[in-house]
């Protein structure tokens, strides 16, 4: 008979509450599949809407979303895998710099990348201005450049999202068993064949990990899709919401089910493809000839150039024409208002993540793991779906509409939705910090007669407090960048840098006006990324 293990109930109950707060509202999106209504006419109306969506809207949305997913993933793979391989194996000019900073394009949200490139290639854009030095206006106009297409959007989104593939591959290639590569080279296999037949197949789980994040971002994106008029699922949810809520709820429910299924499958494939490799320490970097070195530098510099230098320079150029706006009080007020809300959400997320981790450590049960896994589902679910779920959830609690007031005009609701959406970011970042602290420290405290709370306050928390500050910063920036969720739930008179940049670019059709907001957002992202790099070294 199994011994009755004395549980730490306070922590279990706290974790169940957190799991419930994060997961249960998501389930309310499934209401979209039901045909509830107060009158039969209402039900018939809903049925008609859904039939219309099924017949005319959904098939096209599915094809467009799939095309975008495959296109952006392909570009991300192209830009991410090869630089990661070269930078984790060879030493060449700028390799140290590029190894660190090829991650920076992630600081540029997809919607900003989209409209910045659109502005570069517009009729009066930077590209035309540069081309005018070499060609006549007639020649340039005869090219008939139009980048506001689905194909170009795939490329631009790839510029922004390839670092997901790059960073997971870099980690894999840096920690791989170098003896495998050496064994292949002693068998006379060429470097290219070694990459294709040994390194690449073993990197599949890492590549899939990176690609799954790219896919999440593509599904989540609304700003760039709407700017380029590409009708993906998320764009469809917004469009339907303008007509009736039941249509967008139905689309959200559908997307929720598809996304949950797709990511469970991806997770399963990753787990069965994961080959256990012995780790022989970090790979020694090999020197290459001068000619190859320059060639490798160019290959690794190109994604960084297209994904970071070009858009940042374009934004700086646009903002410089409008420099006073950058420091105007309205931008700063928007920034600090949004920052307050983002910080509140981030503090809640970090607190919840720490409790969840500590519960997993204390109770070491499958249930504790399950709670953690379920709570991190929110990140895979697009922001628009979370926004719609939260509305459905609150509406079920209080169908009179009074909810808007008791959530302090919607702000509490927004924070609540951010917590659901970004809990996984906080949880995963916290996990990497906790993993670097030996579990023997709290074990030691408890065998010295100290209880769970004392151990938490005096041992667990002090060991990770600096790491938690980094987590707080990372989550805050992610919240500040979030667009679709904020657009759905933003209260009247409340703007963030993201919503303002989007509205200036899309609604006012002025990328120059959007530039100061976008630049401030990117700058905050860069600061946090640099902070994260430093703290990662220190831990």
């Amino acid at each position, binding site marked *: *008979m199994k011994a009755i293990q004395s549980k730490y109930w306070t922590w279990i109950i706290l974790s169940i509450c957190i799991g419930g707060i994060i997961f249960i509202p998501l389930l309310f999106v499934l209401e979209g599949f039901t045909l509830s209504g107060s009158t039969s006419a209402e039900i018939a109306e809903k049925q008609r809407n859904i039939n219309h969506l099924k017949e005319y809207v959904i098939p096209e949305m599915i094809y467009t979303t799939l095309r975008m997913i495959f296109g952006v993933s392909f570009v991300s793979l192209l830009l991410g895998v090869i630089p990661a391989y070269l930078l984790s194996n060879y030493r060449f000019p700028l390799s140290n710099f590029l190894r660190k900073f090829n991650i920076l394009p992630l600081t540029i949200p997809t919607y900003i990348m989209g409209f910045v490139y659109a502005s570069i290639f517009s009729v009066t854009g930077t590209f035309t201005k540069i081309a005018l030095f070499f060609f006549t206006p007639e020649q340039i106009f005869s090219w008939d450049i139009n980048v506001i297409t689905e194909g170009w959007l795939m490329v631009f989104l790839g510029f922004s999202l390839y670092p997901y593939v790059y960073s997971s591959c870099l980690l894999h290639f840096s920690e791989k068993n170098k003896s495998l590569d050496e064994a292949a080279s002693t068998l006379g296999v060429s470097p290219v064949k070694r990459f294709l037949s040994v390194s690449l197949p073993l990197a599949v789980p890492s590549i899939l990990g990176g690609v799954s994040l790219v896919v999440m971002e593509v599904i989540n994106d609304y700003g760039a899709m709407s700017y380029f008029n590409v009708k993906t699922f998320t764009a469809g949810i917004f469009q339907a919401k303008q007509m009736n809520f039941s249509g967008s709820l139905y689309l959200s429910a559908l997307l929720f089910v598809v996304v949950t299924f797709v990511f469970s499958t991806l997770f399963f494939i990753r787990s069965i493809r994961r080959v256990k490799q012995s780790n022989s320490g970090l790979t020694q970097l090999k020197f290459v000839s001068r000619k190859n070195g320059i060639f490798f530098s160019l290959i690794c510099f190109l994604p960084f150039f297209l994904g970071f230098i070009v858009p940042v320079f374009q934004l700086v150029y646009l903002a410089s024409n409008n420099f006073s706006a950058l420091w105007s009080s309205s931008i700063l007020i928007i920034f600090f208002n949004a920052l307050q809300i983002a910080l509140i959400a981030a503090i809640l997320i970090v607190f919840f993540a720490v409790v969840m981790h500590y519960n997993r450590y204390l109770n070491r049960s499958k249930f504790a793991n399950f709670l953690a896994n379920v709570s991190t589902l929110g990140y895979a679910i697009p922001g628009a779906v979370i926004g719609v779920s939260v509305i459905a959830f609150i509406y079920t609690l209080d169908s009179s509409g009074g909810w808007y007031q008791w959530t302090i005009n919607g702000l509490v609701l927004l924070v609540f939705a951010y917590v659901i959406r970004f809990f996984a970011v906080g949880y995963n970042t916290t996990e990497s910090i906790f993993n670097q602290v030996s579990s023997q420290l709290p074990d*030691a405290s408890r*065998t*010295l*007669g100290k209880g769970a709370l004392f151990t938490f306050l005096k041992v667990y928390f002090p*060991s990770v407090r600096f790491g938690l500050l980094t987590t707080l910063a990372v989550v805050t920036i992610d919240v500040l960048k979030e667009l679709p969720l904020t657009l759905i739930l933003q209260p009247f008179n409340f703007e963030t840098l993201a919503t303002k940049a989007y509205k200036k670019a899309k609604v006012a059709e002025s990328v120059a006006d959007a530039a100061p907001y976008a630049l401030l957002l990117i700058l905050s992202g860069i600061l946090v990324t640099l902070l994260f790099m430093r703290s990662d070294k220190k831990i």
Partner: protein
Amino acid sequence: MLEVVNVSKKFDKQPVLNAISFAVKQGEIVALLGESGSGKTTLLRIIAGLEANDSGTITVNNKVLSDTTTFLKPEKRNVGVVFQDYALFPHLSVEKNIRFALKSKENIETYLTAFELMAHRDKKPSQLSGGQQQRVAIARSLIVNPALLLLDEPFSSLDQSLKRTVRTEIASILKKERITSIFVTHDPNDAMQIADKIAVLQNGKIIQFDTPEQLYRKPKNMYVGNLTGIINEFNGELIRPESLRVKENVNGAFEIKQITWQNGSYLLKLENNNHALFVLSETKTFNQKRVEVSLRK
């Protein structure tokens, strides 16, 4: 003092410990000896309360720590643990680490002196050598007078020269203070030199629990025999090389295959129809290649 009766444990349906039973008397030092994966650290963690056993009973001084109805949390057991990498709190000084478990501001100078840590009391653990860190970890565990002290691979992270010194130091502290203790090791030398008794674990079972001397002289099987030195199977018995002698004989059953120097004697490797036998000899000069083997009287 400590009684472990029929303790079993599975991880993901995989048995890790299988009906483990043994007892430790007051003041005794017991070693849990086994290869990695034999279950020795899991057994230590179960005694400490850091893992729960699936079945069986653990008592200390007749107080039940864990059985089918009771499970005392680690903080309620009064069992001290010295962890493999010492688990010193990095943000606290040596003195604060040692004081960690104390409720009052009592004087700990005698401890600091006894463990030769007086000069290091204000240092952080990262500023100490491996041996000093280990002394802090032991002092921290002993200051609360635990009924039982558990040490997880206490010497594994020390280099060979330091290991000898620390091993002797720890043995003398534990013996002098008559501290009942159990330590986990994969190194038979550690176990043989410090422990009063050794429990040999293999695949989650104790295959022999005996004094070091008995373990050496009367190993239960080849595995235990090999663990504690070179062993032969000779005439159906397990015999050590020093219990055999050789005599040159042209018609002898064994052929000398190899002679190596070992601790002041010569170790002969003999063979007869692919059956190898090891014998200690005072000499390495033999006129004949063939020898006969008999038991020393």
